[in-house]
């Protein structure tokens, strides 16, 4: 039973972390404009996040410390502060996007204006963080979020030309409508959507919340190797659905309602219901994760007491910080900014901040003082180093591409 619950952590982090509003939107946009010619980025992202989440889980299980605690100790206060500032701002952006996503999904379900759902989403997210146990939170959001598999079902129902989809994926090329600049810009965006830093902070802090020990490392590996590829598979189905229905129709995705259209076409109102349930659960789960991540990163840097395993009175600064983050996110949303736009920017900025997050994890995972005999093996280090190079290239290229392509227009 404990095994099953442990796997649920992986699945939540995969679905909530992998398929959040960022993945939903980015994959749908990419599918509607580039078909499956960026599918390889999702694969690269899945392998990357598996690698780094595994490392950070290992660090947490072996040393009993969560990622950010170790970042400050190992890299010093200055680097830690830079890391904190960048991660916190991006986390804040992501929280805003996720809460917007919850409200958009509820609007799609009910027709009631999105703005009215925002306060509701805020209160709901906060209540769960305030009162609900960590393990229950994960299990429920993870299990309900699995209904996003409706995208895969819809894909089959649409009876696509599998050959052409496969050739798009296996022989990537820039479609005639788009330019190489936008192609690579969206490659970076997709990469950032897959490898968002908050997943890693959440995963390792969650490992401490659940008191993982060395004997849980096997479980951690199962979580990662089962959960994240599942998330990747869902991402690809989202892109494929958009590629099959929206790309030929000349529709490029800019709203959540457009993301739903292929699913509606495939399976009607039942499929739509499953989709909306899945989207609400996944974005809700992601909102929980990102809010908790902001709390974790702040608390771990400054040395506050943290954790959902503590009652709020015993982790006062942690909870106050999260309340402030939620309020700030909602304040941004009430200015009327389009949450889809916030989402699109948040994934690119996530890509820019990736080196700040992953380099420290790589360093610590190799440090025998924290890891004892569980330091990285040779093979892991080689792959991790390759990924570090990829991450650096993506991070450096992101801003020039954003400016040159007008953020992918």
């Amino acid at each position, binding site marked *: 039973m404990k095994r099953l619950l442990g796997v649920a952590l992986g699945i939540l982090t995969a679905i909530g972390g992998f398929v959040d509003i960022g993945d939903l939107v980015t994959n749908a946009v990419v599918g509607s404009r580039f078909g499956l010619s960026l599918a390889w980025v999702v694969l690269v992202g899945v392998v990357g996040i598996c690698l780094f989440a595994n490392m950070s889980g290992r660090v947490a299980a072996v040393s009993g410390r969560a990622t950010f605690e170790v970042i400050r100790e190992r890299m010093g206060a200055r680097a830690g502060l830079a890391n904190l500032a960048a991660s916190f701002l991006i986390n804040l952006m992501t929280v805003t996007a996720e809460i917007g996503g919850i409200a958009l999904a509820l*609007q*799609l*379900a*009910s*027709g009631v204006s999105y703005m009215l759902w925002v306060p509701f989403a805020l209160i709901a997210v906060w209540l769960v963080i305030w009162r609900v146990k960590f393990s229950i939170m994960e299990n429920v959001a993870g299990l309900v979020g699995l209904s996003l598999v409706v995208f895969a079902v819809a894909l089959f129902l649409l009876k696509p030309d599998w050959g052409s989809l496969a050739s798009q994926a296996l022989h990537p090329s820039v479609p005639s409508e788009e330019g190489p600049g936008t192609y690579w810009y969206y490659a970076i965006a997709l990469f950032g959507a897959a490898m968002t830093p908050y997943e890693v902070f959440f995963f390792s802090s969650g490992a401490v919340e659940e008191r993982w020990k060395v004997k849980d490392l096997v479980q951690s590996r199962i979580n990662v190797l089962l959960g994240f590829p599942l998330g990747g598979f869902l991402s690809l189905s989202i892109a494929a659905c958009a590629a099959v*229905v929206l790309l030929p*129709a*000349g*529709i*490029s995705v*800019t*709203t*959540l*309602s*457009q993301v*739903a*259209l292929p699913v*509606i*076409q495939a*399976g*009607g*109102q039942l499929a*739509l219901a499953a989709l909306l349930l899945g989207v609400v659960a996944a974005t809700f789960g992601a909102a929980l994760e990102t809010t908790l991540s902001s709390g974790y990163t702040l608390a771990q840097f400054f040395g506050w007491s943290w954790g959902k395993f503590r009652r709020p009175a015993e982790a006062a600064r942690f909870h106050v910080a999260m309340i402030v983050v939620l309020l700030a996110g909602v304040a941004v949303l009430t200015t009327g900014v389009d949450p889809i736009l916030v989402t699109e920017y948040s994934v690119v900025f996530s890509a820019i901040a990736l080196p700040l997050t992953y380099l420290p994890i790589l360093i610590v995972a190799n440090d025998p003082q924290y890891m004892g005999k569980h330091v990285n093996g040779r093979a892991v280090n080689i792959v991790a180093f390759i990924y570090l190079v990829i991450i650096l290239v993506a991070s*450096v290229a992101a*801003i*020039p*591409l*954003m*400016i*040159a*392509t*007008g953020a992918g*227009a």
Partner: protein
Amino acid sequence: MTRSRKLLAAALAALVFLGGLLSGCAQSPSADSLKGPAKEAASAVRTASLAVDLRLQERATAAAATTTADDMLKGMQSATDQLEHFGAKTQDEQSLRDSMLAIFSTISRSLLHARDALAAPTSAPGGGTDLAGSVQLPAVQGELRTATEQLEELMTKAGIQ
């Protein structure tokens, strides 16, 4: 330590500068400035068509379809705003812009009709007395299709398609 920091700051500044240069270059062709709003409008009107089709097939709920129409209306608004801010340099561009604005307003009108029609209940298209599906939706569908064709013609003429 400070030296490498200075180098880093210089490198970052160079990157941003480079990006600024690139974006400056990207803005010169004028047809491109029409391209953005035109594509947005095309996408919006086609989305609305799809939503109406799905509603006629009763695959889409009223809530989902009206939300889609609402979103597309907002998209049209932003495309129209962009177009209005477009500074035409030649007489040709001016007339192109004006025709496009005219089509945009047609599209927006049809989207409004679509939203109202989609909001009304349908239990069977073609049946019932005051149900939207019976009369309004197919009519709106026709409106949207005509508007789409007009836009596509204009885009081909302008060399955007």
